[in-house]
């Protein structure tokens, strides 16, 4: 059996995604029937986080590039949307393409520089670019500066206030997440994903095979940035608030945690990771306001005791059940 880092082994295949999507599609129905309306909002938030984690998983899990500035793209998407809403141009048809364009452009420009580096320097430079976005948000004095900006409302669609309905918004978020999941699933099996994966393990060899590794990585980086920008668009609409904190480096750390706890490179693991993170946050902050005092050591223990996240642990467990049968 392969190690936890290998993608597209049988277990990260089609069925878990289908089950997951069906489950998520039914949440509003169940919530309405059982009159647990807050589930809808909570699950929406979880799916937005999952989308952000998924976008990071594309470059971190498949590409092997540890970006520590990923929250910047969320912040850019959120701020683009927020500013457009405040300026009265918040229609989805404007705000969504603009959010994607802005975060994609930032990913392109920073990617050209960051992807020239490797290893430790890549981590640091993405962190620094993330900080740049954070400080840029702070400098937006006209839009709240340090304190953030409370929005007048959500984006409209053709001038209609459809997204203000939380069930409509839920399914919009769901569609975005499911769409991105399927897209990445297809991409990771296509040549694009194979080259990216190959470059993770041996970039020199991929180059000698004639692939332009830099270009493929840059494409992945831009795609990943745009996906996170999409998450930012959804986040701004969901919370009706934008703040520099969306782009803070701790958020990037949280995203890395989600990706790792779900199993690096496993696409549905990113969703599981986001869910785990939210449950931990909810559960621990119910115990004490100083929940990070528990959360921090949990992360440390998790890293020290396991390799490859929950999915890796499940995988090894399953290997045991399989009696070491190799497939």
């Amino acid at each position, binding site marked *: 059996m392969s190690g936890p880092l290998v993608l597209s082994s049988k277990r990260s295949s089609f069925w878990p995604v289908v089950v997951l999507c069906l489950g998520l599609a039914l949440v509003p129905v169940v919530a309405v029937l059982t009159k647990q309306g807050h589930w809808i909002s909570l699950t929406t938030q979880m799916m937005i986080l999952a989308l952000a984690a998924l976008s990071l998983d594309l470059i971190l899990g498949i590409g092997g590039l540890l970006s520590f500035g990923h929250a910047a793209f969320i912040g850019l998407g959120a701020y683009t949307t927020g500013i457009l809403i405040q300026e009265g141009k918040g229609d989805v048809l404007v705000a969504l393409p603009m959010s994607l364009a802005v975060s994609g452009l930032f990913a392109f420009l920073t990617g050209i520089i960051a992807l*020239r580096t490797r290893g430790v*320097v890549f981590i640091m430079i993405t962190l620094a670019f993330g900080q740049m976005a954070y400080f840029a948000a702070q400098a937006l004095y006209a839009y709240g500066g340090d304190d953030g900006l409370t929005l007048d409302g959500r984006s409209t669609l053709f001038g209609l206030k459809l997204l203000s309905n939380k069930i409509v918004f839920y399914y919009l978020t769901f569609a975005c997440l499911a769409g991105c999941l399927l897209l990445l699933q297809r991409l990771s099996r296509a040549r694009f994903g194979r080259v990216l994966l190959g470059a993770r393990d041996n970039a020199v060899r991929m180059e000698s095979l004639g692939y332009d590794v830099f270009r493929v990585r840059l494409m992945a980086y831009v795609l990943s940035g745009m996906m996170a920008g999409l998450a930012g668009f959804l986040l701004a609409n969901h919370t009706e608030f934008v703040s520099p904190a969306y782009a803070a480096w701790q958020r990037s750390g949280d995203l890395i945690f989600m990706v790792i706890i779900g199993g690096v490179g496993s696409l549905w693991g990113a969703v599981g990771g986001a869910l785990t993170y939210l449950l931990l946050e909810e559960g621990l902050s119910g115990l004490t306001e100083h929940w990070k005092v528990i959360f921090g050591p949990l992360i440390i223990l998790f890293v020290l005791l396991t390799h490859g996240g929950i999915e890796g642990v499940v995988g090894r467990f399953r290997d045991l059940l399989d009696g070491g049968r190799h497939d």
Partner: protein
Amino acid sequence: MSLLAIQVLNGLQLGLLMFLVAAGLTLVFGVMDFINLAHGVQYMMGAYLAATFIGWTGHFVIGLGMALFGIMLFGLLLERVMFRHLYARSHLDQVLATFGLILFLNQGVKMVWGAAPLSVPVPEWFQGSVLLGDGILYPVYRFVIIGSGLLMALVLWLVVEKTRLGMLVRAGASNATMLSALGVDVRKLFMVIFAFGTMLAGFAGAMAAPILSVEPGMGDQVLILAFVVIVIGGIGSIRGAFAGALLVGLIDTLARSYSVDVMRLFVGPAAARGIANGLSSMFIYLLMALVLFLRPDGLFPARGRT
């Protein structure tokens, strides 16, 4: 002109503090290939310990000494309990584990010392200001910071360039595996470097305590700046860290001071300060991007590093 002189001194002072933090970080990186995000919280712990011990003893130098000893023990403890198990791990694991440590310690100091900033009095001997011609006054304590920073840099340079230990450190930064194959106890060397790096960061925090507010999370921004310094200077290179730190200190300070004036031409004073604060923080990151674009290995890459 007088404003420029003061800003250059301020920049020098920030640069030297940055150097103390970055020196430890770059060695830990260079020799152990270990990404220690928690280096910033060690700076913070230095400041907190200094605040506490100076408060207890009522004496700056004694309190500082106790804080340095305390932070070194703390660093050794962390190395023993946690970091040692991470050296052989991937960068991803190192980043995540030390990120967890940051969350823990930032919240931990909030629980122990409270969320409100602590203030440390400037020691009596160093109160007052020096007259620098033209009626410009500059606080003595800031000169003390500059002086002690330069002294530390000199000591560090002597140790790294002129002693056997320094030779081992340089060899380790070039090729730790080879060093270990030659019969050097690399683990012990790691511990020494680690303790020393932690102490330097703690010293920077303690020295900064009287002029900054000591608060939870104060190390985060310093950590990121130290990263920038290291990337600009070249990983594993003390010379690079020194040059990078001074460059970052000066540019950050000057940009901060002049961008307010520039912005004031366009908008009101309050808005100018808000905008300039954000914009000037971006300058050093642009500088870093430029350096990396021109020289991906930094300005002074460690020799023979593969």
